[in-house]
């Protein structure tokens, strides 16, 4: 018991440390009521706030998509674990991103050369923020949150709506990390990494790319909604976890050939994919932060065409490479197409969206087939979020139109290779990808190595056989599949130790049996 309490204590202590300053800082929330009383709220603020908030909720809904996708790709004995994980991760990310992450990602950057934001912790403490020249021209005054979070300052949506939207992005990136770790990672490893990821790794990485940091401002990298900033960062975290975690038991035979471990529900994979698809309209179209010039609807169409291209590309690729239409691959293709169109969604004309998606679909299938030979990535996160994220980011260097480059005011004004004949933008994109990948990989490897050395990263062999549901949660996600019906609600006592599941007693059944007592093998 003591050992368990200590394991839980480390990450919980970190969270408590994050929360303490909040008590000291607590004061009135913004001044929206004051502005309302003075009649100073304008219609654009109202409509833009409404759109950003709706988009934020759409992106939050993507958590359901990730949960269903991962659960569908898991075996039945691990189906329940994904539910507890997604909720825990979301909640940890909320506290960490509110207290620390958002300020590092989007706060005024007074650090050396655009490394991280330095203002706005706990969404507070920006009364003396001074607007930049451009924002002052737009009527932003001292102490306005638009001055404190300048990269989103051109939108007059409320800072709370913008925070919720950006938090939802952080939660998406974190959810991507766990795709490679299914069915064998310890629960407490999630908790610990989630704190570091959503307070530091994601905020700093995304600050560089789309929070006004050095890759965006100095290098001129374009990433409209986060092919790199959200998806590649998440997938890189997933790679780091996988490298230290290793494959699932029996994934690779003695001949080192990969064996199939089929997920238990393709219908759930399909449901998850379609929920992600729906959420993506908030993800990309919401990244406009305003509705006034109707760009958001154009971005939505580009997003749809990218996703459609991804499915068609993957469908053709799986038919050619595998001589069958692999269901999971078609789903991965849609995700890959959407991931790829995320960076260019605000920079390209609609004609290039299906091409970007189509290429992504092919890349995703080829990527899964290649990765499967050496690494165990049950959901294809490395391919769908990683490789497609890289391709999507690079595709800005090819397809960005001059009109939209100037509209967004990042990168080369002459647009991508197709328009300008110049490799300049492609170069910026490639540099951005390499820098972010390296930064996140190093920091994540260090974090996971520390977790491995302290609380441990991987469950015991016997626990992996029995499944995470019964070992870590004391009950199966699908109890009727594992517990004989006459024993559910029955009064009779068998040879099991008293107390039932979760008492830490020795397992009554031989190791590896599904009916093994919770924690029995690990205690």
């Amino acid at each position, binding site marked *: 018991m003591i050992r368990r309490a200590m394991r839980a204590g480390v990450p919980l202590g970190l969270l408590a440390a994050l929360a303490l300053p909040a008590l000291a800082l607590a004061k009135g929330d913004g001044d929206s009521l004051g502005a309302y009383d003075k009649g100073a709220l304008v219609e654009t603020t109202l409509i833009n706030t409404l759109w950003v908030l709706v988009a934020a909720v759409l992106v939050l809904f993507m958590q359901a998509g990730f949960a269903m996708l991962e659960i569908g790709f898991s075996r039945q004995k691990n189906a329940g674990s994904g539910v507890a994980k997604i909720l825990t991760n979301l909640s940890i990310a909320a506290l960490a991103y509110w207290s620390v992450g958002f300020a590092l990602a989007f706060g005024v950057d007074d650090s050396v050369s655009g490394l991280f934001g330095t203002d706005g912790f706990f969404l507070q403490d920006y009364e003396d923020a001074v607007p930049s020249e451009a924002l002052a021209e737009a009527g932003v005054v001292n102490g306005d949150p638009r001055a404190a979070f300048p990269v989103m300052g051109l939108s007059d949506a409320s800072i709370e709506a913008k925070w919720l939207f950006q938090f939802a992005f952080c939660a998406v990136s974190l959810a991507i990390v766990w795709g490679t770790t299914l069915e064998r990672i310890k629960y407490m490893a999630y908790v610990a990494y989630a704190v570091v990821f959503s307070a530091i790794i994601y905020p700093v990485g995304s600050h560089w790319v789309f929070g006004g940091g050095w890759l965006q401002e100095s290098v001129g990298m374009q990433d409209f909604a986060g092919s790199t900033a959200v998806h590649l960062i998440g997938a890189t975290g997933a790679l780091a976890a996988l490298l230290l975690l290793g494959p699932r038991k029996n994934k690779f035979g003695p001949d080192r050939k990969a064996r*199939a471990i089929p997920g238990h529900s393709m219908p759930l994979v399909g449901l998850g994919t379609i929920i992600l698809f729906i959420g993506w309209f908030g993800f990309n179209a919401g990244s406009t932060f305003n509705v006034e010039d109707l760009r958001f609807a154009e971005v939505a169409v580009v997003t749809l065409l990218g996703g459609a291209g991804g499915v068609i590309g993957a469908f053709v690729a799986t038919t050619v490479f595998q001589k069958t239409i*692999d269901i999971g691959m078609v789903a991965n293709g849609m995700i890959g197409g959407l991931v790829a169109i995320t960076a260019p969604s605000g920079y390209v004309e609609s004609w290039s969206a299906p091409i970007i998606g189509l290429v992504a679909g092919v890349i995703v299938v080829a990527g899964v*087939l290649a990765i*499967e030979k050496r690494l165990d990535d049950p959901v294809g996160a490395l391919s769908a979020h990683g490789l497609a994220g890289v391709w999507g980011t690079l595709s800005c260097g090819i397809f960005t139109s001059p009109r939209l480059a100037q509209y967004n005011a990042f990168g080369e004004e002459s647009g991508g290779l197709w328009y300008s004949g110049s490799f300049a933008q492609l170069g910026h994109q490639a540099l951005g990808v390499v820098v972010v990948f390296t930064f996140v990989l190093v920091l994540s490897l260090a974090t996971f190595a520390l977790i491995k050395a302290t609380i441990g990263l991987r469950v015991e062999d016997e626990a992996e056989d029995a499944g995470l549901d019964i070992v870590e949660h004391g009950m199966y996600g699908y109890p009727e599949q594992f517990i004989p019906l006459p024993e559910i609600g029955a009064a009779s006592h068998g040879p099991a130790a008293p107390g039932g599941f979760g008492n830490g007693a020795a397992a009554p059944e031989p190791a590896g049996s599904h009916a093994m007592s919770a924690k029995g093998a690990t205690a």
Partner: protein
Amino acid sequence: MKMIVAYVRHEAFDPIRQELLDAGFPSLTITEVKGSGRQKGLTEHYRGSAIALNLRPKVKLECVVESHDAKVVMETILRHARTGSVGDGKIFVLPVEDAVRIRTGESGEKVLQAHEAEEIPA
């Protein structure tokens, strides 16, 4: 008394069941089982990796009849379960020592006989 245990293809079950009913043998138990014999396995593919399925699904059919009826039941099963390909299954015949009807406690061959229609409550 004999117990007949047959392992047959799924699609053979329904015609066997129909004919046994018509012939006055309503009592039987089935279990869906997986097993291997001379029938070859299948190789399926999932995300680029192969998975060999060597245990093939079959229906296991059990029924206990009076000794002189065993031949009728076996012939019925043979007629419908045989396709001529490997994988049609097997029939085993086992001796049975006794039989007890739990509702009444009566025992012996008579508990194997079907009720007259009017004796069965709706």
